């Protein structure tokens, strides 16, 4: 017969009768949760990506050591992209007899394509955003250069053959990245003024930059077009080359959003599994009748499969729409506060939601369909015949693999996904085992006890398979939610600790060895805590294990790193924001030994290993140092850090300068003038604006994380409630029978609460333990942030489950208790 038309009619009948409604409701809620989290995550990620593009002042930057071919610019314009060009080069800035090195940045009117410049009219004036660039004949300079040259706004500065008027103080430029300790102060000028200075000669060290911005797709297409045409000395700059503190925070925010999406998929799977089981169980007798009336086994499977597909497609579409509306509504509600101008989401989350819903629906229900196929037609005559059970757990393996694949897909990171999937599989087995043990115990206890609670406890033990599935399902869902709660806490704590309110906002470099005690005394005199001083020596890596450094096999970044001088330092103790990943830190006895502690990232980039001997050229003298340990450095800590550190007594003979960082409260800024006067050679770097930029972005990311978390939590609760409703049929009948047999309402309520309190207790315990262990693994190995064991949170999680699940179960059954018993008996 025509399966499709029959299926359509069957669907309509089952829908009207409510048979499909709970399944469809679970599907709609699950897909809505997955797609809403997906949509929102997608939008937030777009914003975060755009925010991170501020660090380039563009969406894409092409950097070259020679003038760029005009064809690059033409092509970008042809593609409708905004284009700006800048030049960077070092030059002496002169005022009267004073000359100082400055980092010149020559920009055109379109600069910056992303973000804003901030300037001030004078040293003491507040800074403000500007859409302009220095006009022809004028320059903007950093306060440091003003101090060095002893000038003020309105004075003249000579660059090469031309004089310029200082028209503003440059306080902030979005793409001011790089190594803040080795750069000279900035002087910004109009690009059109550069030829007149005569500074650019053959062999001048100029960095030419082409900045490009536009919509995501054309920019990406242009990047691909450009990548294949790059000439020698030309490279594309990514956000990953920009500020590490933002980059790390951004990566972690993305990982958290991935984790949230994963949690919503897991919750969807739980809901679908429980609702799917109910659907199949309720259809067994109908299938026996259909078999008796002439339906083949193949037809039964086909009809149910098509029915599920139809529900999956329609429910999935409805879920996607609901998900879109939910996130749109909430984005509008919170978007302004969260991030201004959320971009529209891509259609991918809708596809992801649909696929998740369909895959989980079919994956979970497929093995159960075998029960429908094999239901004995003889049941129409003998209702005592046992129903077929799913004989092997192995039949659920494809479903499990499919869900695992979906979770990995949504995580978009193998390591994070693998930790979560692997951990959850383990805890699912633990939950099932614990539930099985508890069922046995309850059965035994039930025999010797009396009272309403006994009925609840025994009721749980009476249906071990259903109870184990319920406990396992709730454990999984609660674990996902608790895990998210824990990781969110760790992440926010990590961000807060990265930039505490008193994070250093001034860096001081060029402190000479003989100025150390005077500087300490100066701070004491100013009633400021004396800052710790760190030695800094410039050295060039020239050989590894006795062989001259061969850069031919290095990539561009590695080559770039070896071409410049390293900042080496020495220390007896490791900095608190560093962590040893290989080898060990030196002891006091090893003072003076030729040892080196190397940053892990640079060791990987340069292919260096523990035990390798590195030869450095320091001021014309060579020194050999053995790598004693590799360190992981928190580059996002906004503290001075070194790639290479030696033990005390190793590098002291080389000329060193010292650096320090300190927090200067805004009302104490006058101290800087006294400091400059007392230590005229010392350079003070103001990172207030950079800190503000980083703080603002981290706050936005924290908002995003909090919001997605809250959304996920709400969706999760809804999904679990739908799952709970899906398992209530048998209970409705049993509790109605109790009422028929004379049980008082309070006795039934006590039994329901007991039964679900036990479910909640078991699930809550497994979830607390599981989330605790998984939270540690995710924080430690995937996000790479310190893990805080939060026993109170886990206790709170279990307690909430104990309060909410029995209440929700009672809420669901409450309506039933108000209906005449006969109606319930007829309808179940």
């Amino acid at each position: 017969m025509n399966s499709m038309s029959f299926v359509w009619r069957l669907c309509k009948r089952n829908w009207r009768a409510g048979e499909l409604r709970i399944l469809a409701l679970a599907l709609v809620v699950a897909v809505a949760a997955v797609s809403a989290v997906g949509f929102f995550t997608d939008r937030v990620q777009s914003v975060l990506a755009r925010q991170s593009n501020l660090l380039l002042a563009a969406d894409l930057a092409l950097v070259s050591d020679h003038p760029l071919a005009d064809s690059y610019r033409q092509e970008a314009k042809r593609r409708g992209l905004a284009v700006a060009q800048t030049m960077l080069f070092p030059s002496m800035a002169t005022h009267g007899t004073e000359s100082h090195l400055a980092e010149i940045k020559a920009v055109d009117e379109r600069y910056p394509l992303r973000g804003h410049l901030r300037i001030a009219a004078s040293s003491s004036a507040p800074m403000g955003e500007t859409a302009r660039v220095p006009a022809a004949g004028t320059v903007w300079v950093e306060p440091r250069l003003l101090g060095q040259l002893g000038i003020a706004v309105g004075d003249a500065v000579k660059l090469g053959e031309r004089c310029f008027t200082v028209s503003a103080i440059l306080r902030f430029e979005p793409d001011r990245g790089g190594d803040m300790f080795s750069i000279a102060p900035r002087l910004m000028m109009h690009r059109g003024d550069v030829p007149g200075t005569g500074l650019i000669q053959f062999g001048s060290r100029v960095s030419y930059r082409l900045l490009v911005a536009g919509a995501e797709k054309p920019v990406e297409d242009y990047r691909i077009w450009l990548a294949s045409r790059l000439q020698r000395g030309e490279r594309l700059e990514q956000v990953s080359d920009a500020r590490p503190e933002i980059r790390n925070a951004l990566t972690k925010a993305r990982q958290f959003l991935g984790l949230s999406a994963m949690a919503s998929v897991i919750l969807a799977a739980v809901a679908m599994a429980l609702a799917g089981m109910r659907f199949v169980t309720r259809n067994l007798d109908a299938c026996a009748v259909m078999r008796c009336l002439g339906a083949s086994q193949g037809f039964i499977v086909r009809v149910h499969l098509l029915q599920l597909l139809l529900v999956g497609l329609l429910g999935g579409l409805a879920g996607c729409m609901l998900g879109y509306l939910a996130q749109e509504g909430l984005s509008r509600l919170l978007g302004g506060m969260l991030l201004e101008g959320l971009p529209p989401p891509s259609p991918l989350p809708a596809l992801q939601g649909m696929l998740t819903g369909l895959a989980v629906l079919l994956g979970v229900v497929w093995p159960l369909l075998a029960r429908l196929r094999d239901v004995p037609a003889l049941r129409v005559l003998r209702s005592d015949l046992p129903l077929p059970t799913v004989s092997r757990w192995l039949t659920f393996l494809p479903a499990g693999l499919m869900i695992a694949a979906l979770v990995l897909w949504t995580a978009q990171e193998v390591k994070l996904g693998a930790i979560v999937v692997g951990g959850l599989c383990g805890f699912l087995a633990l939950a099932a085992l614990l539930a099985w043990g508890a069922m046995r115990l309850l059965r035994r206890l039930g025999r010797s006890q009396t009272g309403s609670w006994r009925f609840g406890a025994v009721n749980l033990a009476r249906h071990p398979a259903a109870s184990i599935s319920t406990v396992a399902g709730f454990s999984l869902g609660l674990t996902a939610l608790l895990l998210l709660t824990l990781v969110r806490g760790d992440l926010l704590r990590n961000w807060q600790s990265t930039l505490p309110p008193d994070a250093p906002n001034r860096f001081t470099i060029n402190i000479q060895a003989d100025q150390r005690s005077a500087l300490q005394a100066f701070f004491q005199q100013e009633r400021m805590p004396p800052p710790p001083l760190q030695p800094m020596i410039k050295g060039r890596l020239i050989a590894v294990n006795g062989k001259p450094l061969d850069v031919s096999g290095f990539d561009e970044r590695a080559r770039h790193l070896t071409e410049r001088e390293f900042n080496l330092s020495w220390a007896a103790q490791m900095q608190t924001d560093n962590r040893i990943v290989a080898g060990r830190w030196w002891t006091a006895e090893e003072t003076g030994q030729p040892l080196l502690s190397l940053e892990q990232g640079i060791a990987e980039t340069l292919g260096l290993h523990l035990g390798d001997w590195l030869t450095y050229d320091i001021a014309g003298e060579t020194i050999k140092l053995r790598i004693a340990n590799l360190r992981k450095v928190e580059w996002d800590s906004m503290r001075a850090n070194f790639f290479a550190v030696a033990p005390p007594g190793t590098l002291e003979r080389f000329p060193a300068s010292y650096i320090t960082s300190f927090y200067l409260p805004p009302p104490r800024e006058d101290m800087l003038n006294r400091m400059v006067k007392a230590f005229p050679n010392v350079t003070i770097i103001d990172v207030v604006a950079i800190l503000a930029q980083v703080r603002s972005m981290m706050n936005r990311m924290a908002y995003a994380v909090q919001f997605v978390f809250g959304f996920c939590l709400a969706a999760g609760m809804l999904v679990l409630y739908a799952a709970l409703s899906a398992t209530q049929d048998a209970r409705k009948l049993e509790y109605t029978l109790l009422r028929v047999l004379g049980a008082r309402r309070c006795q039934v309520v006590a039994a329901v609460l007991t039964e679900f309190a036990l479910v909640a207790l078991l699930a809550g315990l497994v979830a607390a333990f599981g989330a605790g262990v998984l939270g540690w693994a995710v924080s430690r190995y995937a996000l790479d942030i310190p893990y805080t064991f939060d026993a109170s949170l886990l206790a709170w999680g279990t307690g909430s489950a104990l309060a909410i699940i029995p209440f929700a179960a009672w809420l669901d059954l409450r309506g039933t208790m108000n209906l005449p018993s006969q109606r319930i008996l007829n309808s179940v």
Partner: protein
Amino acid sequence: MPTPVIEAKQLSKHVTSSEGPLTILHALDLMVEAGETLAIVGASGSGKSTLLGLLAGLDVPSAGQVRINGVALDQLNEDGRAVLRGREIGFVFQSFQLLPAFTALENVLLPLELANRADAAGQALAALRRVGLERRLSHTPNQLSGGEQQRVAIARAFAPGPKLLLADEPTGNLDSATGERIIDLLFELNREAGTTLVLVTHDAALADRCGRTLKLEGGRLI
């Protein structure tokens, strides 16, 4: 000589229970001719329902053979037997076996739709009209009385025009007055359609209305 509608030879059914092997049916032979009405009577546990299940191809015998209109059931697989049932056999059960999610009309439509009949709706409507339920078409089973549910089941059994009607304790769940009206209806429709009727019951009065009665005792026909 016309082919018998049912031909069972040396039909046996053994099962293994917790107390060891148990024989429910002992090598019984049975032949039912077209148009015949046969009652199989016996006490509870005598094997009546097991025999009915074997005759309908809902279960497979441990030994022996069943032929329905000349077709040996043991030559057919599970799906083949289902197709044969859909084509040749109608059922009336003690517990009605109506699909709870379906209305009266939809329940009667089900075998017609499964057999892909043209004008299934018209036939189902006619069948329900014939059992006096034309005003209850859109009612679901839980909105119908026991007698009404059994009338829907009778309409469903007759609607596809089966050659053989198997009825298992059709009045078992009904009070005597309702049961009597149901039996009147069943026999009336059977007469009109010329269907062969095999009826399993422990009700002697009901058995008396059939043309032939066989008694099943301890798994043997006597």
